[in-house]
């Protein structure tokens, strides 16, 4: 059955901003889908509010809308584009929910648009708990015993039947948002309360506890001829109770016999048929009782999911791509398996290797949050590794996480006695440290049975960890590092660093180990992911390393460029860097053989289609060096690109250069020059550029002295960090002392010496400006100038910004250009440069410069239509800006320093994960923005004017600004004067203003009426008058304006912000944001958003540019 001929255009819905539980895997799947649909000759219309995605690059669709994913916008797009079909199964829960809303609004019917992939009935059956339970029973499976409730009272009644502990799962939420485990009635009331709120259907499922059971997932695909294949089985090392996104998982399942596996397969196939997923993928999760084998079906996702991205990378079977083909009518047997080229996609991949996925967490960003892992997903990213056995894959995956404390170690004496009991007790509470705790407990002599009792991790895995311990002991005890000792160590995943530590060879001991290893001829080989365990020849060079006998790297003649990716997503280093890496491969493909090294399964960069060769490897010095040497043996290598993947590859640059590897673009010395305060200070001084006063301290007395000299407030942070980790604004010597002591304490715990602390003068009330530029050694191209909406002091990653700047003069832009050029020249940049400036009282201070791809590169590229990363890659291999202007990669003339009145206004807004993080008591963590970055993703609002662009960005980020109702206002004293105008506008627009006494007084004197409400700290009134927190919680406030007062009296503010976040209402925490919000509200009130595709924007831009060019 070939492709359907009754469909000629498809609207693809993307997944919006990166949030916990829905990350760049949907860019990977969406990009694959768009590519396939275009290849099939369909007109592709795409909606995604996330500019940092490859899928929203204009070449991947015919009409790309970077607009909010709302029913209103979707309706406008459908009315304008009149697509034949909507594909919503590749954009995560966001797209699925958007499709349901569209259907409910009658839009699909009105315009005669067909939902392809999965229809509404199937989505409902898969996602609605009760319906799904019936499906499972029909299919001969079993569900956990359960009750559906819509109120807290019903939940308490259900507890009588089910008993505690009990699992709570809200319907229709993603990433398990709002779910949890209730051990008693208190827990139950709290979790059900939240769950009812998050569920769009105010529905929560309560079920018997299957905690501690073995957990499995199957990824299935079905075509319209009813052929079904199981693409991959995944086993969770962490048993039921930890969200699969937060579990360490393994593919294929390793502890089931064939009979048991086939039972899961049979149920899965029956379920996908019964649910009626017509075409495409679905994911089914199972629990298996470890003693009886009783199988309980947990849930299914009738769509492509995070697990399917993992399964695609784990097997080489591109689920999203095939799902897209199935959606337009092909059957599995009509689609070739790309990897072999000779066999069809209607088969089940078989693996001759083991895949391990390890989640990466960011609890350090939310110190108040409870770090217990539960059925609500909390991880922000993941790393995947492959090896020819479990221990090898596990060792590689753990070191791919790129965070201290995540790998196995044998430092110090093993614990004993009560300390061991305590360790086992700790391990019984799942946290991100659990696997290392397990390893330490086994090392200390705990039996596998004891550890199993504490963790319910399958004994087979525990024995494998024990095996690693035994091998470590052999390494430590061996009289010398012989061939066999080293081979065994490497075969079971020990890194050179770990071997060196075991041998007690001092710092840089890994270099010694490497030398011995190379002298003994012990090198990894590179095997191929081929979907078929070598039964057929593979034609895609998708490799992973293993210590085994035979390598499969093919010789090549073309010169190669190796691009280092960014590793697991984390806050501060996410999809934006993958975007740049992917662009580099696209730009270099014509001239070079492109080779990607990365370990993040969620990304487009690790699609085997992206680069010419893919190495799925950890981004450590050892692993990268081995890839380089293997490729050098295969053919000429031009060099390595380290500046596009963020801090992870950048931090390897110097060592790689020292080892003789050619680093392309900005040299490691220049990278250091920008990081090193004194060197960079000289660069600025020579160029005559002002910077805030600063100093570097390594001891407490130093720090206090420097801060006194500079003057408070100061900005303090450790050097060499990305995402502002550990950055704080400090107002006094006491605060500073506290900060330094904490840093010293952490360093002592980690066994490190204290990294230098950078102390900068903090510029109050400054406007922050972000600049992305390109430099080729002689010429500068200013890519984008972004004006932050919040004042300086809020991390640039969390701050909303606007491009082109809406309040900078030509003179200021000229100054920015001159300064940026001076820095680029002084540092010695070849490629990308990001500079942050602060503009205070007409002085342009340089805050910092980073000679690498920044987080804003995709935003700038999308807003201006110029691919900065592609251009940078070409500069790094030796092209000049003049070349790129001539070839059309860059505009023929001008750059961001030239004000173009026709350019649309783009607003970037950050998306923050506060809702996900609760304290151990269940309260939301504080939501105040600060110098430490905490956002997970971003959206873009694009319009002709700022107010509409801002309103769109808010709608995309969190659902939108209110247009009527009540606004609560409580601001710090310093902000009170600036409050009057914006609030006046709100009153004029019909809003009711609630205010605390002090704020109300200011408003009253300015003739603005407001209602005084009780502070939280004053408690309820004598007649039960509610406090502001009560009102917010009751949903009676539509927007909250609360600026923190910097010092002291924070408690009220915290309660207000937490309640607002929990109630899902917009919160404004800076006065600049308030002005923008008021402008946005006025824009919404002026009429519905009009939508324009990027392609239309570009055409308009080009049209407006032509006469200019003609004039010049």
């Amino acid at each position, binding site marked *: 059955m070939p492709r359907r001929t009754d469909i000629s255009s498809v609207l693809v819905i993307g997944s919006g901003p990166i949030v916990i539980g829905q990350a760049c895997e949907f860019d990977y799947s969406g990009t694959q889908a768009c590519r396939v649909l275009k290849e099939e000759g369909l007109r592709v219309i795409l909606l995604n509010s996330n500019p940092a995605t490859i899928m929203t690059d204009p070449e991947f669709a015919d009409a790309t809308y970077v607009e909010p994913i709302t029913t209103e916008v979707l309706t406008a797009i459908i009315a304008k584009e009149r697509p034949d079909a909507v594909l919503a199964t590749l954009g995560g829960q966001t797209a699925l929910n958007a499709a349901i809303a569209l259907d409910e609004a009658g839009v699909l019917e009105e315009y005669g648009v067909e939902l392809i992939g999965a229809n509404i009935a199937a989505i409902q059956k898969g996602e609605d708990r009760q319906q799904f339970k019936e499906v499972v029973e029909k299919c001969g499976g079993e569900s956990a015993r359960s009750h559906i409730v819509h109120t807290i009272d019903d939940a308490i009644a259900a507890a009588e039947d089910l008993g505690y502990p009990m699992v709570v799962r809200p319907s229709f939420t993603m990433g398990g948002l709002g779910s949890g485990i209730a051990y008693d009635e208190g827990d139950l009331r709290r979790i059900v309360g939240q769950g009812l709120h998050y569920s769009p259907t105010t529905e929560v499922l309560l079920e018997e506890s299957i905690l501690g059971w073995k957990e499995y997932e199957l990824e299935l695909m079905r075509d319209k001829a009813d052929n079904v294949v199981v693409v991959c089985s995944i086993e969770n090392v962490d048993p039921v109770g930890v969200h699969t996104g937060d579990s360490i998982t393994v593919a294929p399942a390793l502890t089931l016999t064939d009979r*048991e596996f086939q039972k899961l397969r049979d149920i899965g196939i029956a379920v996908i048929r019964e649910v009626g997923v017509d075409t495409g993928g679905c994911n089914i999760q199972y629990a298996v009782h470890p003693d009886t084998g009783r199988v309980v079906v947990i849930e299914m996702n009738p769509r492509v999911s995070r697990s399917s991205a993992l399964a695609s990378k784990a097997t080489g079977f591109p689920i999203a791509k095939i799902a897209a083909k199935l959606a337009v009518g092909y059957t599995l*047997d009509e689609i070739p398996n790309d990897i072999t080229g000779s066999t069809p996609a209607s088969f089940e991949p078989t693996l001759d290797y*083991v895949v391990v996925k390890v989640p990466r967490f960011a609890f350090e960003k939310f110190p108040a949050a409870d770090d217990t892992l539960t059925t609500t997903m909390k991880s922000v990213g993941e790393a995947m590794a492959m090896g020819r056995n479990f221990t090898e894959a596990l060792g590689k995956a753990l070191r791919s996480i790129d965070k201290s404390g995540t790998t196995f170690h044998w430092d110090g004496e093993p614990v004993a006695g009560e300390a061991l009991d305590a360790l086992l007790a700790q391990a019984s509470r799942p946290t991100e440290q659990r696997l290392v705790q397990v390893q330490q407990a086994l090392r200390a002599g705990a039996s596998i049975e004891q550890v199993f009792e504490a963790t319910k991790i399958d004994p087979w895995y525990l024995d494998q960890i024990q095996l690693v311990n035994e091998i470590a002991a052999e390494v430590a005890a061996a009289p010398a590092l012989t061939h066999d000792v080293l081979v065994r160590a490497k075969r079971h995943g020990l890194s050179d660093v770990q071997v060196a530590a075991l041998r007690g060879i001092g710092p840089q001991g890994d270099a010694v180990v490497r030398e011995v290893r190379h002298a003994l001829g012990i090198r990894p080989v590179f095997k191929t992911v081929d979907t078929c365990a070598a039964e057929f020849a593979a034609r895609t060079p998708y490799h992973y390393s293993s210590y085994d006998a035979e390598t499969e790297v093919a010789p090549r003649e073309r010169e190669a460029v190796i691009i280092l990716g960014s590793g697991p997503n984390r806050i501060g280093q996410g999809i934006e860097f993958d975007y740049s890496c992917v662009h580099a491969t696209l730009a270099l493909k014509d001239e070079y053989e492109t080779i990607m090294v990365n370990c993040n399964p969620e990304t487009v960069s690790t699609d085997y289609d992206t680069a010419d060769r893919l190495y799925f490897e950890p981004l450590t010095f050892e692993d990268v060096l081995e890839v380089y040497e293997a490729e050098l043996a295969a053919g000429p290598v031009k060099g390595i690109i380290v500046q596009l993947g963020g801090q992870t590859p950048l931090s390897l640059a110097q060592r790689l250069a020292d080892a003789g590897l050619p680093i392309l673009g900005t040299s490691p010395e220049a990278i250091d020059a920008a990081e090193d305060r004194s060197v960079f200070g000289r660069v600025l001084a020579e160029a005559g550029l002002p910077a805030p006063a600063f100093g570097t301290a390594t001891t407490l007395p130093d720090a206090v002295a420097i801060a006194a000299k500079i003057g408070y407030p100061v900005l303090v942070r450790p050097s060499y960090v990305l995402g502002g980790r550990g950055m704080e604004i400090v107002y006094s010597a006491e605060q500073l002392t506290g900060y330094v002591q904490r840093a010293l304490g952490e360093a002592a715990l980690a066994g490190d010496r204290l990294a230098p602390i950078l102390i900068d003068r903090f510029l109050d009330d400054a406007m922050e400006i972000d600049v992305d530029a390109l430099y080729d050694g002689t010429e500068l191209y200013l890519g984008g100038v972004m004006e932050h909406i919040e004042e300086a002091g809020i991390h640039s990653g969390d701050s909303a910004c606007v491009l082109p700047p809406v309040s900078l003069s030509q003179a200021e832009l000229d100054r920015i250009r001159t300064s940026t050029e001076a820095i680029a020249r002084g540092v010695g940049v070849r490629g990308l440069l990001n500079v942050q400036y602060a503009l205070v009282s007409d002085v342009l201070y340089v805050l910092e410069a980073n000679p690498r791809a920044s987080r804003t590169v995709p935003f700038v590229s999308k807003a201006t239509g110029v691919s900065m990363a592609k251009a940078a890659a070409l500069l790094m291999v030796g092209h000049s800006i003049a070349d790129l202007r001539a070839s059309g990669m860059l505009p023929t003339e001008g750059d961001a320093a030239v004000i173009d009145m026709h350019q649309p206004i783009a607003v970037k807004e950050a998306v923050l994960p506060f809702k996900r993080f609760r304290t151990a008591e269940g309260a939301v963590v504080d939501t105040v923005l600060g110098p430490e970055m905490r956002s997970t993703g971003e959206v873009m609002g694009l319009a002709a004017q700022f107010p509409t662009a801002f309103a769109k960005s808010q709608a995309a980020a969190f659902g939108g600004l209110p247009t009527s109702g009540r606004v609560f206002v409580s601001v710090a004293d310093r902000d009170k004067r600036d409050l009057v105008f914006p609030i006046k506008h709100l009153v004029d627009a019909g809003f009711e203003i609630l205010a605390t006494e002090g704020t109300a007084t200011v408003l009253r004197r300015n003739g603005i009426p407001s209602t005084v409400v009780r502070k939280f700290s004053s408690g309820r009134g004598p007649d039960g008058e509610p406090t502001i927190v009560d009102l917010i919680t009751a949903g009676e406030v539509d927007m909250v304006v609360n600026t923190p007062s910097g010092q002291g009296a924070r408690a009220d503010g915290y309660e207000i912000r937490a309640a607002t976040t929990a109630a899902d209402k917009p919160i404004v925490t800076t006065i600049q944001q308030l002005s923008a919000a008021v402008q946005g509200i006025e824009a919404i009130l002026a009429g519905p958003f009009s939508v324009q595709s990027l392609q239309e924007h570009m055409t308009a831009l080009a049209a407006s540019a032509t006469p200019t060019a003609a004039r010049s």
Partner: protein
Amino acid sequence: MTADTISPLLGEHPEDAAVLVLEDGRAFSGRAFGATGTTTGEVVFNTGMTGYQETLTDPSYHRQIVVMTAPHIGNTGVNDEDPESHKIWVSGFVVRDPARRASNWRSERSLDEELRAQGVVGISDIDTRALTRHLRERGVMRGGVFSGPALLEHGYPRRIESLVQEVAGAPAMAGADLTGEVSTPQAYVVEPSGPGAPHTVVAIDLGIKSMTPQRLAERGMRVHVLPADATITDIQALAPDGVFFSNGPGDPSAATHAVALLREVLDAGLPYFGICFGNQILGRALGFGTYKLEYGHRGINQPVLDVRTGKVEITSHNHGFAVDAPIGQEATAPHDGGRYGRVVVSHVGLNDDVVEGLECLDVPAFSVQYHPEAAAGPHDAAYLFDRFADLMSSGARSASGLSASDATDAASTKEN
């Protein structure tokens, strides 16, 4: 000259070393696994990620050294429910990472213990992927696993040449008639275990897997399993409603008795179903040739197209030989001037267009090359057992024998 000896392959721990040598001279070093000693056979690879216990006990692997491409083998130990026969049949077992500890609620003992107890020589810690790629490129060939004293001659490491010679002395698979070595010596009955028409089926054991009669019994059939040397008289004595020929080892071209017996079954008009070897025997009985595949199909992920429905099933395979029949067209069975009428290739392997099933249009007979009993493997093809039951229920045949008009009737009956 150490280069000529295996001593470089023995590493720092020669006491537990093992060596695998192929007849083309390629050698792999590893560690002894299971029993120590010498074993030779045809080296084949199996790509299933589950089901090692079923694989080991599948009689079709008789005289074969099986390489598992999945690296971790033995994780779920050994239980007494899953074997496909009373013993391990593989002549040798090659794995990369044997489990140190079995973990499964049904596990009774470890795989290593089981291999030792049954005297099966194995080798572990070798690059199974490199070996698999070698077999894929060069075709399956004979090989040997040597461990313990078998590595030494007069107390010194043996020369590789002598191992290769030993391997070359082993009998080849082509031309081998192995049925007699695996078949049950005595007839036995598997009683019905589920609902369904109470048909009596005679199953000829050419190396039968225990799941097969079980699948028939689940559908209400009483299954008389007879030894491979059974005659048509033995079969007819049981007055069966249908006859089944099982899977089994060896070269179908050497299975002269089975082919002759099947022709008698067809002549008697008895409904016939064959699996694997039983498919090849039908092919030969109909007058088609059989040939040895370069490296065979052994795995549980193989896509097969049911030509009649256009649907794809994921199936379990274990075959080194295949039937040479025309795909995509109706043909007349060549034997005896078309005595058995028309035949179609009913199932095709989608990976390499190999014949995976035959269906006679004028006599009540069909067969598949793969394993609908699926132990190990997916259950997608279980419908074939129902098809067999339907064929018997349709009463297409009496024991009155074959005539041309009957054959035509049969075909038209089936189309109703």
